[in-house]
């Protein structure tokens, strides 16, 4: 999952640095991801994982790092399986 998230960030986050140089807990906003780019990351994640982020998850903390995104996706997948 982490590598898929990294791939989506590479394609959509428009970071000024190579995503491979970022740790899983690096703050993506501090690394240069704009708010608008975070929308594209969200859309890319929704397309790739066939999920929809609910309204209460549309907040900065959900998309602020690779680890945070992975945790959110796991929560959504657990909810979908329940």
């Amino acid at each position, binding site marked *: 999952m982490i590598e898929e998230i990294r791939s989506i960030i590479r394609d959509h986050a*428009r970071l000024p640095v190579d995503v491979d140089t970022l740790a899983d807990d690096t703050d993506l906003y501090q690394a240069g991801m704009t708010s608008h780019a975070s*929308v594209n990351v969200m859309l890319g994640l929704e397309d790739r994982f066939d999920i929809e982020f609910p*309204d*209460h998850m549309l907040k900065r903390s959900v998309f602020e790092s690779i680890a945070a995104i992975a945790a959110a996706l796991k929560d959504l997948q657990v909810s979908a399986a329940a």
Partner: protein
Amino acid sequence: MALRVGIDLVSVDTVRESVSEHGEHYLARVYTEREVRDCTTPAGLDPERLAARFAAKEATLKVLRPGDVGVPWFEIEALRSADGWVGLELAGAAAKLAEEAGITELALSITHEGGFASAAVVASCASETGNQDR
């Protein structure tokens, strides 16, 4: 009474690319039907207008200070009035945050030039303690 101000800048090219790449998925997750209508010209969707509205949404979020509260972008709506000025309408979590902050009035100005769109939002608040703990 206290004032809050928010400002944001958006690259029009990034919005154009989002429309091209994600199409309806992008529009439906970010904009209201009324906003899309306001941004539609005889030549099609105008990415400059969309970018200005996205900047308005982000500038409004800076005023609302949502902290860890999720706010869908479409709950912040930038609408053009018949006389040409733009204003804001809030719904859902965005409206709740404004109420909790004691925001009594919101004013919006948008502009676009040279490949960028910008928005500024000013809010008057009944107090400055509304959502400081978020």
